[in-house]
């Protein structure tokens, strides 16, 4: 589904990604953790073609992002993305937020798109908020709308960039439950998060990044019980406290 081959990226002189290699198979769930500034979010943005990279290659569903002929807009339809600060369109209702892309990009009819949007709102547990504006929703509700918005394009893969770090503690669970539900349905997922409970429960693979490199990777429990590098041990020690 996603192949990252030897990817490096620089912001000016500063190297944010150093020779990243990773393969995400269809249906696989990969959790990326690491200290801030380690390049996790940048990696997600590169996979979605939101940021250029200078070396290596990223291939999504057989299409290379390095190829100048690749239509990035088309490619992004395959990957849904959820951001730390929700990024809902503040001037549109929840329903419009979800139906905008299906109507404009997929050329769906409005009733068709709205029917689908209502199903998705049902699924994330807030069908009664369809007519509300983002400003009138709690953080947890906004993030669930953001997930529904991404799902409305029926993506083959979902990427989450610290989806719970801007939330009050009591709202984290409601968002994680939606994500766990998605994982159980077999969605391919790439999740940057420090929610280690979530990582334990759903991750097929956990990647630890530091200073633009993948320092360590492992399967669920094994990663937490026997971290190999000292850097990973220190990090886990800090967040599991």
């Amino acid at each position: 589904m996603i192949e990252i081959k030897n990817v490096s990226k620089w912001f000016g002189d500063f190297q944010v990604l150093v020779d990243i290699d990773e393969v995400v198979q269809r249906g696989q769930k990969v959790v990326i953790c690491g200290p801030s500034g380690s390049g996790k979010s940048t990696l997600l943005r590169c996979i979605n073609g939101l940021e250029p990279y200078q070396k290596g290659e990223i291939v999504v569903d057989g299409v290379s992002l390095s190829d100048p002929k690749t239509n990035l807009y088309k490619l992004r339809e395959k990957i849904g993305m959820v951001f730390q600060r929700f990024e809902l369109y503040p001037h549109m209702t929840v329903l419009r937020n979800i139906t905008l892309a299906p109507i404009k990009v997929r050329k769906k009819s409005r009733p068709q798109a709205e029917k689908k949007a209502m199903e998705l709102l049902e699924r994330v547990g807030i069908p009664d908020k369809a007519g509300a504006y983002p400003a009138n929703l709690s953080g947890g509700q906004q993030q669930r709308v953001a997930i529904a918005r991404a799902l409305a394009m029926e993506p083959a893969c979902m990427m989450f960039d610290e989806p719970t770090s801007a939330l009050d503690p009591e709202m984290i669970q409601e968002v994680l439950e939606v994500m766990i539900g998605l994982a159980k349905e077999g969605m391919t997922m790439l999740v940057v998060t420090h929610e280690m409970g979530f990582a334990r429960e759903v991750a097929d693979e956990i990647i630890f990044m530091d200073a633009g490199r993948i320092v360590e990777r492992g399967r669920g429990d094994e990663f937490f019980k026997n971290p190999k590098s000292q850097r990973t041990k220190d990090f886990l020690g800090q967040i599991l406290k």
Partner: protein
Amino acid sequence: MFDAVLENLPYLLGGFLTNVKLAVFALAGGLFLGTLVGLGRISKRPWVYYPVTLYVNFLRNIPLILVIFWFYFVMPILVGKNLDPFVSAAVSFIVFEATYFGEIFRAGFQSISKDLVSAAYSTGLNFRQTATYILVPIAFRRMLPSMITQSIITFQDTSLAYVIGLAEMVRRTTIVDSIEVRSIQLYSFVAILFFIICFIGSRISLHYEEKSRKAKVL
């Protein structure tokens, strides 16, 4: 007590109409050129960004009255004939106000978070769609209060065109005053008229500001 005003009312109001017309031209042209200037100021192309920035910084740092004078005296040399004061004033205002509107546009666009744009892109929207449905509507809501405020300032500033002999209201008032010698009532009348228009404008601006604040779009 407003006898001198009443006697010359059609003449004075005719001047006021000139202020309104000048303001309409200045705003329409200023907004149009200002949008281009704003886009130039956020452009990543150096050959667009630097000339536009130079233009903006230059004009924003000289008084409007000098721009009006300069245009009026320099344009005949460039075009080869004397310009009508109204045309000359309108051009100076457009060129001057565009820099202010441009900066309002720039601030409006730059206030939109990079991630919001990324979110729109990540659903498959292309640049044109993102601009049409997300960037412009949000930027416009955020810019509206400052745009109305700037429009009020522009309207007040139209009276400066009297320096090049444009027969707008202040100019006509000085003419009437030189005959009637009723300075206090005449200038009070001008002030009241400007005040009414601008006060209404500022209330409208406040209304939109409140509205956007409530919707948390600001």
